[in-house]
């Protein structure tokens, strides 16, 4: 077993070798970075696995970032996290940190110093990060599940299959945007909706979007990928003229014919948008932003929207981000207006990964397709989806307000 030194590497290599067989790989290949999603504390088994590896002296072989953990390491006491649960989640953080990983604790590792580059072979976990790395950066990762990501990091190897290989990165499903106005394409709320739709329709195919004339920002593409990887299994998408492997239709499909062609019109988009809202009426208890974790640009945008305003006293307002991004935002002066507004910031985790929300919170509003997708089932809440500006206006008013002008018939 090449590369297996010591008992931890042997265990990691044993799992990796069995998985290589499942993938039908004839060989393993080197990677030069990893991102570990197994950090999220789920229960005793995941903790036992992490502590087994750490106890055997596991060390990562490549630069490795860590996904969100189960708690804000230095701020969990301010929330509803039970102390015994926090103790276990913390042990899991310690175990992964002890393996030599960088304690980034973020689901947006592509917005850190360890952002991969075009063509780089990596092993990433976390569905939104996988979609972003492959699609927006042109780095190459399979959809690495929890528990396997760390085995790849320890061995520095992956099965040479799937999205690591050029021939498997060609588009398969062509989605043509038809009659989608430019003003909507430029709006933040368009991207989670399009992503949600793509995830639902793509199945296991690689989707290609044509007809996007706006120039989406990095954060808009991040929102699209996160939504597509929640409602579906999307690990790679191409957008003609936008993403790096899709300068032309021919390039995106590697000169093959699409297996399917579908038109995406406003009617379909409106339906996708309505699916992201599970709440009824305009009652509101809490606004949650930051899935994936807020970037410095998003903090800047938010600080302008909330400047000089106050959230309604009955509405909680939370932004989830990484410790590094929050420190950058603080030093750039973007946090003061948010704090004056009555907003709070949590780092290292999110509302889906940590039992932090008070149990009486049942009605959320968010601009995140991922929060909107998962919160109803995981947190037993009802969610209203809206743009960032809608979320701020609603927090001020104390009830849900949405600007429908861009979505109207």
């Amino acid at each position, binding site marked *: 077993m090449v590369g297996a030194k010591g008992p931890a590497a042997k265990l990691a290599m044993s799992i990796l070798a069995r998985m290589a067989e499942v993938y039908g790989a004839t060989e393993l290949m080197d990677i030069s970075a990893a991102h570990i999603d197994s950090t999220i504390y789920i229960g005793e088994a995941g903790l036992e696995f992490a502590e087994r590896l750490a106890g055997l002296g596991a060390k990562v072989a490549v630069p490795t970032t860590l996904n969100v953990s189960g708690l804000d390491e230095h701020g969990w006491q301010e929330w509803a996290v039970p102390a015994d649960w926090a103790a276990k989640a913390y042990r899991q953080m310690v175990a992964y940190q002890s393996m030599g990983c960088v304690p980034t604790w973020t689901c947006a590792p592509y917005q850190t110093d360890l952002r991969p580059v075009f063509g780089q072979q990596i092993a990433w976990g*976390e569905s939104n990060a996988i979609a972003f790395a492959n699609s927006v950066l042109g780095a190459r990762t399979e959809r690495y599940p929890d528990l396997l990501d760390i085995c790849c990091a320890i061995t520095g190897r992956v099965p040479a299959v799937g999205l690591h290989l050029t021939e498997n990165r060609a588009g398969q499903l062509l989605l043509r945007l038809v009659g989608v106005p430019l003003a909507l394409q430029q709006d933040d709320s368009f991207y989670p909706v399009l992503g949600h739709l793509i995830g639902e329709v793509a199945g296991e195919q690689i989707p290609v979007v044509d007809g996007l004339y706006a120039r989406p920002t990095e954060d808009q593409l991040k929102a699209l990928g996160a939504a597509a990887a929640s409602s579906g299994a999307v690990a790679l998408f191409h957008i003609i003229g936008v993403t790096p492997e899709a300068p032309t239709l021919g390039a995106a499909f590697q000169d093959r014919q699409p297996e399917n062609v579908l038109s995406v019109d406003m009617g379909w988009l409106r339906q996708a948008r309505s699916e992201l809202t599970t709440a009824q009426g305009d009652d509101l208890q809490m606004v949650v932003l930051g899935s994936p974790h807020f970037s410095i640009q998003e903090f800047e945008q938010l600080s302008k929207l909330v400047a000089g305003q106050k959230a309604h006293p009955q509405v909680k307002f939370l932004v989830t981000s990484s410790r590094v991004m929050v420190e950058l935002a603080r030093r750039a002066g973007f946090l003061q207006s948010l704090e004056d507004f009555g907003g709070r910031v949590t780092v290292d985790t999110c509302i889906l990964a940590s039992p932090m929300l008070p149990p009486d919170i049942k009605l959320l509003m968010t601009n995140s397709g991922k929060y909107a997708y998962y919160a109803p089932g995981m947190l037993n809440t009802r969610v209203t989806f809206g743009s960032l500006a809608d979320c701020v206006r609603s927090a001020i008013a104390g009830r849900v307000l949405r600007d429908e002008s861009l979505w109207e018939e």
Partner: protein
Amino acid sequence: MMRGKVVIPGSAEGEVMVSAEPLSFWGGYDFHTGEIIDRRHPLAGQIATGKILALPFTRGSSTTTAVLLEAVRAGTAPAALLTTGVDSFFALASIVADEMYARPIPLLALKPVDYASLRSGDWIVIREDGGVEVNAEK
């Protein structure tokens, strides 16, 4: 008798719970109870513990494997899993369940036509060689 591609070998029998919709176990499977909790999913509200769970593939979150491993440890996992393609997330959970607890979950990939013939409530026997008997005598 139909035959599936053996991804993780093992024998099992039980009532099948089948859906044409993929599922993310993160946010979709409560490992404390074995209940399917994704409200958008057709199987929502049903308990999969000890059943033969048939899902075409796993959706979304890469945490699905961790949730399934917890279910194995907690005794709330399905008795076996049937899919249409080779699902690497289910396979990994089963392999780690084997390495950690010596309790792998049998996993078979069926041909789409065989998968489509499954009906919830059928009694199914899965054999180590990938053979699947439907409505076999209990």
